[in-house]
């Protein structure tokens, strides 16, 4: 087993990986950018190395700096988390070339799955159903011709991408060129590669993905599905397992397809095979494979009782994954809500600022993977994910009630979050029925922020009056939480 691991990430996933390492008795090294000097992930690691400026390209995406930090601290392996360098085959190869272990799949599998256009064709050859579309287009006129042939609505995707970034729905021909242009910009900035592909847009489709897990000795299983149809801007906000709509037969067929997909590219470690399911026909289509740990891995952990991050590390160290397909069992129901610093009332615009007050829910069956602490800052440089709230309960309706109760206890002041929005999604009859498709949030779910209740105005007035009359602000000390890092440190350093 490794004695030291460098975690090449930030936020909640870096914190979560550090905990897995601690439990395995492994020393951890965090890396951080200048914007993250006081971030939670630097505090939970045994060591922390500054690797560059706040722009991702200067730090978290800087392969040389990350590897140099690992060498400096005698790390033997690097865990990339998700996002950043996690699906970068050059990075995985550079890690190996430096004599270190990359905790993830083989670079060849990353490369094979990283090109979304190429991987679709490969999966088609392996017998998996794929969504009709057009790849390897170059000129605008190629795109226009292909789009006309396919018909609208259609989807533009980044060939190199994943996680919904750069993905755009085009409903009429007139918007195509502008959307292509925008998608290219995002793709170039996010993945350093502006190639795009087109895909038929399947309406009312569900996004269902399968977790796969394999070791370096040829053993590969799936760990069941995750239902990820609640999305905004093509990014997931609520995930759950089991999927409320999957029949046992379809689960088995899709699970087998996921294992085939991973096997074709010689996959090992954790990966996720994404499918679109047309509920009208029960037909499923291979969408893409994410060659990394997924944001929503925790629902699978709660459902199966397995610690995926610890297994990632053990498999990277050469251990065998000891469970056969029939040994992996499901119990109860797990749901995750992603807590974003974003304003649902302004088109989910990210919100930045200092966390003036942060009260996080706790209780039986409640897990919170958080990347922030009271007093911390949410900057504009990185993804606005603050935390993931995950619950496990005996069945779906208990799990929904549990996560609703937990969200009611979640207080975040200083940045706008999507917590109230999540509450309204969870309470919606469509969600409660489990009949939500990927377009639901944007096309069917009508959301308005609640009117400000009298209680809130009264509380604000009492607090304000008190601040005025006492001369000191009633709640002002929340801005100098003694447990929040650094606030007081400034005075102390002088």
């Amino acid at each position, binding site marked *: 087993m490794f004695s030291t691991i460098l975690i090449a990430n930030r936020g909640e996933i870096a914190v979560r990986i550090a905990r897995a390492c601690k439990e395995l008795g492994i020393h951890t090294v965090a890396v951080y950018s200048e914007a993250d000097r006081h971030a939670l992930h630097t505090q939970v690691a045994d060591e922390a190395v500054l690797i560059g400026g706040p722009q991702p390209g200067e730090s978290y995406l800087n392969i040389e700096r990350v590897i140099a930090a690992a060498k400096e601290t005698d790390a033997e392996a690097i865990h990339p988390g998700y996002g950043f360098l996690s699906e970068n085959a050059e990075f995985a190869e550079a890690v190996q070339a430096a004599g270190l272990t990359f905790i993830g799949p083989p670079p060849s599998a990353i490369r094979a799955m990283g090109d979304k256009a190429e991987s679709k064709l490969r999966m088609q050859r392996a017998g998996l159903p794929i969504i009709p579309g057009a790849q390897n287009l170059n000129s605008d006129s190629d795109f226009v011709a292909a789009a006309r042939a396919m018909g609208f609505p259609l989807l533009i995707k980044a060939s190199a991408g994943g996680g919904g970034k750069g993905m755009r729905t085009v409903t009429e021909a007139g918007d195509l060129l502008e959307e292509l242009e925008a998608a290219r910009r995002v793709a170039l900035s996010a993945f350093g590669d502006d190639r795009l592909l087109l895909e038929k847009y399947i309406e009312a489709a569900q996004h269902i993905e399968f977790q796969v897990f394999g070791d370096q000795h040829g053993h590969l299983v799936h760990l069941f599905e995750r239902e990820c149809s609640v999305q905004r801007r093509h990014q997931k906000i609520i995930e759950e397992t089991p999927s409320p709509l999957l029949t046992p037969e379809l689960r088995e067929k899709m699970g087998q397809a996921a294992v085939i997909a991973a096997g074709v590219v010689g996959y090992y470690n954790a990966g996720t095979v994404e499918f679109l399911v047309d509920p009208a026909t029960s037909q499923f289509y291979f969408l893409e494979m994410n060659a990394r740990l997924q944001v929503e891995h925790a629902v699978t952990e709660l459902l199966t009782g397995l610690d995926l991050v610890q297994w990632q590390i053990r498999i990277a160290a050469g251990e065998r994954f000891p469970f056969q397909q029939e040994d992996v069992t499901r119990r109860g129901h797990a749901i995750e809500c992603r807590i974003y610093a974003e304003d649902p009332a302004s088109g989910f615009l990210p919100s930045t600022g200092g966390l*003036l007050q942060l009260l996080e829910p706790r209780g039986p069956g409640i897990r919170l993977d958080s990347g922030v602490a009271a007093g911390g800052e949410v900057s504009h440089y990185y993804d606005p994910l603050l935390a993931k709230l995950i619950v496990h309960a005996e069945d779906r309706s208990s799990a929904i009630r549990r996560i609703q109760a937990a969200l*009611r206890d979640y207080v975040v002041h200083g940045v706008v979050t999507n917590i109230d929005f999540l509450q309204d999604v969870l309470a919606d009859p469509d969600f409660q029925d489990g009949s939500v498709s990927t377009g639901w949030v944007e096309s069917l779910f009508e959301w308005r922020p609640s009117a400000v209740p009298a209680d809130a105005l009264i509380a604000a*007035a009492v*607090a304000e009056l008190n601040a005025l009359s006492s001369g000191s602000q*009633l709640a002002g000390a929340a801005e100098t939480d003694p447990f929040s890092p650094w606030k007081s440190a400034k005075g102390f350093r002088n």
Partner: protein
Amino acid sequence: MSRLLFGDAPVEITSSGRAYSVSLDDRLGQVELVEADQGRMLLLIDGRRVVAYVSPDGSSVWVTTGGRTFRLKKSITAARSAASHDASSELAAPMPGQVRAVNVNAGDAVTKGQVLMVLEAMKMEIRLHAPFDGQISSVEAGVGQTVEREQLLIRLHRRDS
């Protein structure tokens, strides 16, 4: 007696010790402040127990009650910012970020809804649209530039119609 304004909601409040009289929407209520902890208050509003979390934040105040969080703008600021939104001839950055594209130059005529500039923040594209038919007076930021929240990006004026 103090008259406070949160957004467009006026609240009149009078205190005597821990007891307050509050008038809101022409309804009068009796409020007792049972306990106050920095950031957390326990109130009795007409005898009903209400827990509220409150954090002042410059000209705003964050309030959570009944599991819902609201950012209330205090009167004057709120009025000013609403006004500037409607009548303004200045476009400012809605949040910190980097300028990805500038689609107009000074002197260009623009139509309402046209994308004038594209920012990237938190890996997301934010498009700045023309709020009315008009003409660009000046462009204050260039491609690649990092801008702060509220930083002036474009000045424009209404076209005489």
